[in-house]
Every structure is written in structure tokens, then in C-alpha cells.
């Protein structure tokens, strides 16, 4: 028993302790970021630069992944649905899955991989080279100067990128469905319009905004808490990407429950 405690319980307890500890720190960071959010001066230059970096520069990768996700999805569902003579439902199925789940989740993961990793690395480097301390000494809140613009930009741009992803995904599915699998175009589009509601689309965008908010705060936090040289920056970047991805998938479940309840048609 004593050995069991030493080998398993003790490290486990320490681990849980440290997780709770960082969750506490993270929440403080989150609240501080929200508290600085409405404060002047509004740094439009910083915000626009972040929006360009997160939004505009992510667009190509979102288009590329969107088109292939839609295409492969059409291929799979097309083949399966053909077994029940239900190919015409391919458009509707893809439309619903894309707008509700795949669009927001995939986009958030792509933004994490492309933008949030860079965010964590940049802020981590600034931390270990004392640039964040320097901001502090110059009476500029690093949270206000660095975190707030990134938080706003990611929260706004993730839904926009999701909209692009949804649209491009459906176009990808359209080409595979109609041109390759030779599903009747009229039926494909009819079912798509009939089953996919604008509320599904907006529900997905709301989700994406929440994802954007969480992944930006997690990544900024990760950068801010980086310690010790280049290796520490590397570790904080890895942590940002892993934690963001996991949080996207977990919050997705809870957001879906909530959105299904309040946003979707009662019938579907």
C-alpha cells in the first residue's frame, strides 16, 4: 500500500496539483485580459496587423484544406449513400456537417497550427528576452499591448475563415459529387437548400468565435509563461498547440449541446 502510494498516488497528486495551479493562473490571465479589453488607448494599428496575420494570411491554407475536405467527404458519402440509392442527399449531409461541425473545428485547428503557434513562439521569445518586462517598465501593460489585439483579432477572424471554409468545402463537394460521381445537380442543390438552414451556418460561426477566443488566450498565456532560452520557447509553443487543439475539441461538445438547444430548428 505504501509503495503504491509512493509510485502512483504521489506523482498523480502532484500532477493534479500542478494542473489546478496552472488552471488558476490561466483564469487570472483570462480575467486580466478581459479587464484590459475596453481600456484606452485602442491600438488599431496592432489590431489590424494581427487581423492581417491571422485572417488574411490564413486564407490560402483554409481554401486549400476546405476544398479537399469537401471533396473527400463527397467521395466517401457518395460511395456509401449509393448503397441506399440516397446519393442526392450528399449535398445536404455535407452542408450540415460542414456548417455545424467540420467548418468551425477544422478552421480552429488550422488557425491554431498556423497562427497560434506563431503567437506563442513570438510572445515566448519576448518573454525570455525581457521584452515583456521592458513593456512593463515603460508603463505599457503587456496584456493590453500584446494580448488584447491578438484576442480580438482571433475571435473575429476565426468565424470569417470558417465561413470561407464552409463555402469552399461545399464547392469542393459539388465538383466531386456532380462531375465525378454524376449525382443529379438539381437534386443535390435542392436537398442542400432544403436541409441546411442559415441558423446552422450562424451557429457554426458562433462556435468558431468561441474557439478563436479560447485558442488565442491559451496561446498568449503559453507565450507569457515561457521560461529559459530557446528550449523554453519551443516547449511553450508545443504546449500552446496541444492545449488549444484539445480545448477546441472539448469545448466543441459543450458548445454543440448549447447551440443545438438554442439555435437550430426544433425538427432537426
Amino acid at each position: 500500500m505504501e509503495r503504491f502510494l509512493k509510485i502512483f498516488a504521489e506523482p498523480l497528486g502532484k500532477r493534479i496539483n500542478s494542473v489546478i495551479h496552472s488552471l488558476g493562473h490561466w483564469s487570472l490571465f483570462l480575467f486580466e485580459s478581459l479587464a484590459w479589453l475596453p481600456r484606452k488607448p485602442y491600438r488599431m494599428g496592432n489590431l489590424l496587423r494581427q487581423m492581417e496575420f491571422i485572417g488574411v494570411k490564413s486564407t490560402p491554407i483554409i481554401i486549400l484544406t476546405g476544398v479537399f475536405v469537401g471533396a473527400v467527404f463527397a467521395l466517401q458519402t457518395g460511395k456509401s449513400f449509393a448503397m441506399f440509392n440516397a446519393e442526392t442527399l450528399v449535398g445536404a449531409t455535407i452542408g450540415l456537417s460542414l456548417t455545424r461541425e467540420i467548418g468551425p473545428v477544422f478552421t480552429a485547428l488550422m488557425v491554431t497550427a498556423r497562427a497560434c503557434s506563431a503567437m506563442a513562439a513570438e510572445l515566448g521569445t519576448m518573454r525570455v528576452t525581457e521584452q515583456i518586462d521592458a513593456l512593463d517598465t515603460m508603463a505599457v501593460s503587456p496584456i493590453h499591448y500584446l494580448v488584447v489585439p491578438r484576442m480580438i483579432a482571433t475571435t473575429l477572424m476565426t468565424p470569417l475563415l470558417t465561413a470561407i471554409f464552409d463555402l469552399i468545402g461545399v464547392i469542393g463537394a459539388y465538383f466531386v459529387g456532380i462531375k465525378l460521381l454524376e449525382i443529379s445537380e438539381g437534386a443535390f442543390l435542392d436537398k442542400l437548400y432544403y436541409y441546411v438552414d442559415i441558423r446552422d451556418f450562424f451557429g457554426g460561426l458562433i462556435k468558431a468565435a468561441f474557439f478563436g477566443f479560447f485558442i488565442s488566450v491559451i496561446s498568449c498565456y503559453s507565450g507569457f509563461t515561457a521560461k529559459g532560452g530557446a528550449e523554453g520557447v519551443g516547449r511553450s509553443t508545443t504546449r500552446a498547440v496541444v492545449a488549444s487543439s484539445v480545448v477546441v475539441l472539448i469545448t466543441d461538445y459543450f458548445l454543440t449541446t448549447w447551440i443545438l438547444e438554442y439555435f437550430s430548428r426544433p425538427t432537426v
Partner: protein
Amino acid sequence: MIKLVDVHKNFAGQKVLNGINLQIRKGEITVIIGTSGVGKSVLLKHMIGLLRPDRGKVFIAGVDLGTLSSPALVEMRKKFGMLFQGAALFDSLTVFENVAFPLVEHSNLTVEKIRERVMEKLDLVGLHDVDKKMPSELSGGMKKRVGLARAIILEPEVILYDEPTTGLDPIMTDSVDNLILAMQQRLKITSVVISHDIKSTFDIADQIAMMHEGKIIEAGAPEIFRASKNPVVAKFIGT
């Protein structure tokens, strides 16, 4: 102006500050000396609230730093300028933007006025034609001087210098010493300087404080210091 009372600080069990008592008087230049790794930079960071003491208090103009909220602390720091040991320049901004940063944030000067001030300060630290360069394109000593220009640009009440002359040639060292003296004489700026250079220490100091094993073992005017009976002090300053 700045008062440290019984300040303790540990890093992962390593005692760095172990009961520091020190008073920095208004309008004076205080030089802090001590062996490498003794905790001088850590001490300096306590004076501006970048690090919080585990025990003890830091007072700025009579206000306990530990009691300030984060916006109040930001407000208080407007009185300060600081040069970091590693310069800590923003690597995404040009030299000009780095030096102009405090002005852009805290003054409502016009663009031309800011330009004028920045060029004047860069000139003071002996840098010419570097304003469009990025920090990564500068040598160590040049970075240090850009950091110095940035620390003094607002002409704040208090300036903290972490080894302003380390890595500079003897002529540049003299001119930086003169700059620190001029800031004090012309603008009555309170300065805290960390230095490894004994000659410049005696040239500029109103008060010298020596750190050893987490404590201030001697503090006083240069004459008192020269006459110190403490063997550690005597050995360090070579008398």
C-alpha cells in the same frame, strides 16, 4: 525616493535576496556593486515591481508597491526609465521606433517633435545613421546604447541602469558616465546604476552600495567606501 525594507527573494529554493535594506535618495546617483550572480539585477527589478519580494516591502515615494493594483502600478511606472542588462529592445521594431516608443505611448508630441527628440538622444549616446536598422543588425554595445536612449527619452524622475557601460570601449564608457551625470545635474534625475567598473563607480556615485550573499554589506558615500574596514569590500574595490 525608493526604499527597500528587509526584502527577501528565493528562486526555486535558492536564496538570492536575504534581507536587503537600502534607501535611494532623491536626485542622487546610487551605484550598486557586487560579484557576478550575486543578485544585482534581481534587486533592480524589485525597485520597479517587475519582481515581487517573498518577504519585505518596497516603497516608491512612500507608497508600498505591494498594495498597488495593476493599473496603479502602470501609472506609477511612468516615473521610471529602465535600461536592461540585455537591452531588451523590441525586435519587431526599428531602432527609431524603439527609442520613440515611450514618447508615442505617453506624450502627445507631434511626429516632427518626436523625430527631433529621438535623433537628439541617439546622438547623445553616439549613434548615427542607425535609426532605420532593426535591433538584430546591431552589435551588443550598440544595442546597449539604443536601450539607454530609450530609457532616458522621457526624462523620467528615476532611471535604473543595469550595467550601462559593460561591453563599451573606454571612450564610450566615459561618455556614458558623463551622460548619466548630466542627466542628474541638469534634470535632477534619481539614478540607480549597476556597475562592474570601479573607476566609473567612483566617478559618478553619490552613494555606493555593495551586495554580498543576499545582503547590502556596505552603503555610503565614496569616501566612506574607500575607507571601509570590511575585507570583502576592500578586496572588491582593490584598496
